[in-house]
């Protein structure tokens, strides 16, 4: 129950915060020629419009364009398919895991579970590849501190960290959460720990997945789909 509440609250809360932050940034940005005017009709109206735009018939085409742009920069050649599979697996794993974890008291079972486990293995492979491939780009250095104000989050507590620093932290958070997810799944299948540890392992798996999903939401906002306010 705690997991269900935490999942709903944190996922919904973070989704709100990121979209609302994006809305505010767009609303505050000056109007530019050739682009949609800054939203003036409130957050929810903007959100409705944003979702409507996302599911327009040309949505897949735009998504494909984004995918090709992104992968040409970071996952060239055949590696783009590794990235694509990783994202698709992540989406299914998160959707199935949270749906059953939150709404089905019995937890996941049947074909969704078989698919979840199978895609979990594929995701683990892709994640390991992505971490290996992108580790150098996300290694911490002092350059992230040199970002100008527009590339920083307004955070009074954290001294306005640069978006790149946040992205790096999120990347490694995702890697760490992924490692916990993989190990908790692997150990539950090996005759190493007694049955009494199965429940803690499952809880660990779930909470790590929640952390991973939360990190992914922010990472998407910061790196994958940054708001175009300039």
């Amino acid at each position, binding site marked *: 129950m705690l997991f269900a509440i935490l999942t709903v609250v944190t996922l919904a809360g973070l989704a709100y915060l990121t979209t609302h932050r994006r809305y505010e940034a767009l609303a505050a940005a000056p109007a530019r020629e050739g682009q949609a005017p800054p939203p003036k009709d409130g957050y929810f109206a903007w959100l409705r419009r944003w979702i409507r735009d996302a599911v327009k018939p040309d949505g897949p085409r735009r998504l494909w364009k984004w995918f090709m742009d992104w992968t040409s920069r970071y996952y060239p050649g055949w590696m783009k398919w590794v990235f694509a599979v990783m994202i698709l697996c992540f989406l299914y794993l998160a959707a199935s895991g949270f749906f059953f974890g939150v709404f089905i008291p019995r937890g996941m079972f049947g074909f969704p579970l078989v698919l979840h486990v199978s895609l979990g293995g594929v995701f683990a*492979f892709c994640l390991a590849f992505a*971490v290996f491939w992108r580790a150098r780009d996300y290694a911490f250095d002092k350059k992230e501190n040199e970002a100008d104000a527009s590339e920083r989050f307004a955070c009074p507590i954290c001294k306005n960290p640069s978006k790149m620093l946040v992205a790096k932290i999120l990347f490694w958070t995702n890697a760490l959460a992924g490692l916990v997810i993989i190990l908790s799944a692997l150990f539950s299948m090996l005759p190493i720990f007694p*049955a009494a540890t199965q429940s803690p392992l499952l809880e660990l798996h779930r909470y790590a997945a929640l952390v991973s999903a939360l990190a992914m939401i922010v990472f998407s906002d910061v790196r994958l789909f940054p708001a175009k306010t300039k």
Partner: protein
Amino acid sequence: MRGPDILRTRRSRWLPGLLVGLAVVGAAGLLSAVSNDPQKWAGSRVSPVHQIPLKDGLNQDIVPTETNPLPFSARFTCAPCHEYDKIKGGWHFNDTSGAPAGRMGEPWIWLDERTGTQIPLSYRSWKGTFNPKDLGLSAWDFTLLFGRHMPGGGAAEPAEADKTPESRWEVSGAIEINCFGCHNASPKQNPSEWAKQVLRENFRWAATAAAGLGEVLGMSSRLKATWDVFDGPNPDDSEWAVAPYIKYDRTLFDSKHKAFLNLSYKPADSNCLACHSAAPKGQAKRDYDDDVHSAAGIKCVDCHRNDVGHAMIRGYEGEGKDNPAAAGADFTCRGCHLGENPEGKPVKAGRLGAPRPAHKGLPKVHFDRLACTVCHSGPMPAKATAGVRTAKANRLGIFGVADWSTDLPAIQQPVYIRDDNKRLTPSRMMWPAYWARLEGNIVKPLKPADITTAAGDILFPENDAVAVLNALFSVPDINGTPVLVLDGRAFEVNADLGLSAVAAEAKSKGVFTPAWALLRDGKVVPMTAEFDPADVEASIEPETRIQNVLATLAAMPAAPGQPAWAYKGVVYKLVDGVFDKSESKDAPAAAPSLFWLKSEKRVPLLAEAKARAIAALNGTEQTLTEAQVEAVLKLLTAKAAAAKETGGEYVYIASGKLFRIGDKGTLIAKDNDAAAPVAWPFAHQVRPARQALGADACTDCHNGASDFFFAKTTPSGPLMTDKAKSRSAVSYMGMTQPFHRLFGLSFLIRPGFKIVLAIAAFVIASILAILFLTMLGRAAGLIEKRR
């Protein structure tokens, strides 16, 4: 001493005895009111020696040297220390009292092999069982049917209101709770003697005889319904209708007529197993392993405990709801081994030395969805569920000259079914079989006796053959055992006046025209040697044999016609007792054939339908063929039409199907809820942990061809039919077969899957470690220094 004398003697002692008894009961009641619970354990772990006076049903001390002493009564003998009426509320005795039914247990199964009846009965409201009262079975009928394995009390000790007019309780007496049946530690305790006495209707004597306290002779069943226990011996008959009487074992009594009773507070396992044995059908005794708990020295009652009220702990989860006396008890698998009581609350595990299993790598879902017994109890799953015989159903444990055990009712195990806790539980399953009247959607079972009467010889196909074979025994100089040759087998009459196939070859496979022959030196030979009827000299000997055979058959009491013998164009018969040889009007018979001549028509000694039934059923556990069912249903339907019965039809239910006569006048089988199987969970035999399912690997159950998930269960019962539909084990589990096929197959790649996960984890962990070390080096200034 004659009956009336006994009566006078008894009554002279009866009144003061009653007064004393009342006074004692009153005083005991007063005492109990003062001390609150007179049977409260004071703390001594020593059981008292039971050197006590035996009391009869009138609460009189039994004097073994007295003429015609009465049998002992548990009610009065045990009463000074144990409250009989409180014990009567215990699990073994309370089925007729409306006590909570609790988890489904093994029902009593009303078996009538001849009519193909096996009906699950219970006074408890268990799913799929019939209340005996609803089928017209009185307490008397029920006791006669099942008293052999009943512990007394309940239906065997009915209230006055439940004593139906046709019953003979006044003659037999009631069966009081048989304390000795469980608590007797004497090796003389004899369940077979109990069964024998019950079948003789010596109800009130059965406990005395079975306990070895004395020898009981005579049979209530042979006495007139007006006989009373105080009448004493039957003066008119000392050989046949002998009234029951007892010769007490005087060595058990001291000079004050107190008997030494070797009683045990904790009943021996053998006493429990007298009624609760179960073993796979066909298994050799030497191959049978004890329950692992028994092998470890734990007795049945170490877990299945009870207080003075005898509310036994049955040991299933959630029992506290049904049996408040067991609430909070932790004598479940989980209680002793995992430290969870039936309510799921933690208790101290390890009771009686129970080891705590680690269950390493076993996903939690197994604990949520399976009872412990699924993996740990009963036979290992095989390609198909197997037959099992239980003491109560198949009359096991009754030994004597005759074999009491029966193949039917057909019960199968293990079938995994969800219990009230939604957990899979290994169960035994049987398919009800009975004749019934279908009125609308309601199926009303009919009594086997009614069907036997109505169906006549359809249900007794071997009777004609047995009569002929028995008659042939008396043919002069027969020099062999008469046998019936049919379908490649030879059948002889057995001790039960049935037919048994003999181990001799006969060349008539697929031929259902009966032939009569002799079994001589293990070989089947014709009744006469081959001869030429035209050769007068050579035919003297065989024709003498033929004449003898015909004369013997003609003398049969129920001969339906004149016997005749046809051979090579010649017909032999008796005309007014004189041997007659004449030309046959029919085509010459290649082999000798015997038949009845009825109005000059040839009628076989054994009708082909009966021959087919004999050939089909002999040597199998089935007792009915579809042809017989069809014939009986048509007969019942015709009788109903003649009687102008309306609003229903006769049907037969067996093997999971409802059989009826279809529109085309042939037998058809349909699905019907009334034919659904009845299942009850079992918990023993518990196997050692190393023999548990999954002890070797997950693939014990999770593989593409798993016996656990895909074992076939084919409904079985008294009917020989190919209409019974096999089902996969997974369907009884409420799961889907494709999923478990796929899931099972996924275990083929699971090792590789684990390797992928391990490599992925290693790569990510390594990079994270490098990152961490890099950050640590930077923090320590090592990296800047290196640059």
